[in-house]
């Protein structure tokens, strides 16, 4: 099936995949009173020793921890806070989504959820992969200390695209891809994290919310309030990340960050969506564009800003940031693009720059809710978190 080496997912076959937590069998010998579920829960809980707190946010605290059986095996434990909203609807949608999807997805470029356990006080604890090298955003922003090459960008993007492709193959839309949700492992690997806004692909005709994805990384169809969409939303976000890695600045940084400014910016930088370049767009409920018409930007114009990734790189970038989601490449097509096999070769893991903020960045990152803008002062992100109808 795979015609491009980029498409080959380098996972171990399932039989060889090692879970850090051994799957306890139902037949383990019971104490007479605790029921089976409680016993299993306790078993999981007892496998880890909680260390110091490495992050604390509104929604979760994150602790470093290690396995009882092996002090060198570090993990991060994300303890979800029981907030006031728990009375309103119990365990939050975000927590449920994150647990649901991470339990299913096992891929080298997706953060691993080793286990979940609860404590007597009924807190959920997610045992996650320990990713001590921070996140991609910190690397992008640290322009004084960190420099990286187009080969590094290719390597990072390849890992991101493999993660995205794998999600889509499993019928999962991430819906919040952005540099600070890309954590860096000790060996330099990129790990897609934060599945709090994810959902599984809808059946045809099932309405989905358009109020999702952090605003700077949100594709035009969602600004136009499309209720039916697919993997293209994630590909657009990946395109934004790609451009951000090259330019070391957010591609569509609308300030103040509202929908109108975002659409304006997309029109300026990509072109005005019209019936010509996107048949049917004018029928979308939220279709509004600035009165001044801007033609689709030519490849030459893109080349001026993104010369570093070469002509094939720019070709790929343009195809990921195509306005019409039906013409935009899907994750598989992205991986089949010749960019990945062209010179330069993607950097090897050991040659990639590290130091994306370290443990602290991981701690911070894991405490966040999806949809938040991570850039300090920027406030409200307009993603409806609590009342998320039809998500």
């Amino acid at each position, binding site marked *: 099936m795979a015609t491009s080496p980029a498409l080959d997912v380098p996972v171990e076959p399932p039989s060889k995949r090692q879970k850090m937590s051994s799957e306890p069998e139902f037949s383990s010998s019971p104490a007479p009173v605790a029921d089976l579920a409680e016993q299993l*829960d306790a078993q999981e809980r007892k496998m880890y020793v909680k260390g110091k707190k490495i992050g604390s946010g509104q929604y979760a605290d994150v602790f470093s921890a290690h396995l009882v059986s092996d002090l060198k095996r570090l993990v991060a434990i994300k303890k979800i806070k029981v907030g006031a909203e*728990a009375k309103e609807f119990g365990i939050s949608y975000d927590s449920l989504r994150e647990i649901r999807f991470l339990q299913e997805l096992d891929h080298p470029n997706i953060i691993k959820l080793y286990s979940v356990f609860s404590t007597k006080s009924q807190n959920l604890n997610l045992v996650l992969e320990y990713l001590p090298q921070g996140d991609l955003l910190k690397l992008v922003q640290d322009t004084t200390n960190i420099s990286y090459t187009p080969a590094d960008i290719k390597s990072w993007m390849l890992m991101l695209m493999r993660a995205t492709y794998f999600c889509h193959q499993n019928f999962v839309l991430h819906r919040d891809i952005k540099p600070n949700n890309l954590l860096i492992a000790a060996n330099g690997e990129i790990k897609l994290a934060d599945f709090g806004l994810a959902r599984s692909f809808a059946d045809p005709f099932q309405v989905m919310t358009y109020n999702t994805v952090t605003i700077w990384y949100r594709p035009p169809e969602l600004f136009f309030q499309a209720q039916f969409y697919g993997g293209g939303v994630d590909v657009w976000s990946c395109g934004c990340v790609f451009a951000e890695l090259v330019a070391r600045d957010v591609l569509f940084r609308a300030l103040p960050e509202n929908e109108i400014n975002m659409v304006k910016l997309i029109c300026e930088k990509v072109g005005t969506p019209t019936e010509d370049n996107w048949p049917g767009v004018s029928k979308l409920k939220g279709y509004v564009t600035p009165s001044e018409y801007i033609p689709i930007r030519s490849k030459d114009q893109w080349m001026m800003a993104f010369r570093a990734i070469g002509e094939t790189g720019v070709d790929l970038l343009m195809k990921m940031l195509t306005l019409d989601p039906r013409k935009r490449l899907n994750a598989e097509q992205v991986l089949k693009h010749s960019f990945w096999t062209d010179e330069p070769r993607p950097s090897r893991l050991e040659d990639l720059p590290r130091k994306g903020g370290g443990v602290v960045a991981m701690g911070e990152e894991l405490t966040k809710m999806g949809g938040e803008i991570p850039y300090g002062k920027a406030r409200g992100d307009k993603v409806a978190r609590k009342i998320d109808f039809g998500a």
Partner: protein
Amino acid sequence: MAHSLTEDDIYRTSTQYRLWSFSPESLAAVRRKTHSLAIERALQYGAASILTAHESLRLIQRYSSLLLTTATHLAFPAPVKATAVQFLRRFYLSNSVLTYPPKEIYKTVLYLACKVEGTHMGLAEFARRISTEGEQVLAGEYKVMQALRFTLEVRQPFRGLKGVLMEMLNGAEGRVGVIDGLEDGRGVAETMRSLPGPGDGDRTKWTPPADGSVGMRHVQDRIQSAYSAARILLETPASLTDVYFLYTPSQLLLAALQLADSPLTSFYLSTKLAIESPARPKILATISSCADMLASFDQSQVLTKDERAELEAKLEKCRDPGTKDLVESFAAMRQDGSGEDGLEDEKAKKRKGAREKHEREGEDLFGPSLGANNG
């Protein structure tokens, strides 16, 4: 060299496969274990006549059925129903009805399924529509999450069935690629027109036209009828038997289709499974045994209202007194465990102190509150 994952590889990584798939023997063993634990416990608290394992199972089946009707009443989509029922059935693999009677747990699993599948209904409204309190719905939530071993995905056959429907409709219109043994799309359409009619016991409502000349329109009708009949099988019998524990979603949907219209399904399978494929006999046998299980279901097996009342009266006499009041016992458990979170408690106290201080100052600034009854 890295290899590409097949659909089967991907399914084998799912929690449904890893944790919730059984052989008939291992499924029975888990249930035996859970029941004997419950009996052990019942002897400790001194219960008289204890519900048998069989009676427990029938009660769970009855509540699975109630979940379907309640969810239909609330207009929840099919995936919510299937998820809720499987949550309930998974819950009772490691818990006994003696400890947590389904009368309470079914509300919790339905609301949880609703949230997991992204169907939004406020807790207050949900509680009102099933005549209970929000507190009651949430009381067992952690218990349920724990019993589900914090896995929330239920892989279902509905999307796959829709896929087969579309594939077959395309075939009927001759819009297919080349299939082994059949020259072209037109060949497929023709073969589909000349298929023998549904068998005697088949569930489809479709019958061949009286004059025997089957056109494309007829084949389309036939496919749609088979789809509807299969869907009914997947909604009810699949929810009220153990098939989800024993078979994969694709086996389920093919079994349902086979019961709906066997010649049509055989044809469909022939386009997917080469006659000489060594896996073919095994696959067909699995589908058949799944179909047998679905077919053996009969609505009359489900407890009537009176029978249920009778069993629940019996259950009342042997149920675990320790979990009688879920709301209270979970609140107590939280209290119990709060020692582990001492740090946070301190913070909470600090926050509370600050809030109260604010309130006091606020009162000073704006005078005392007007009192609730004055307005």
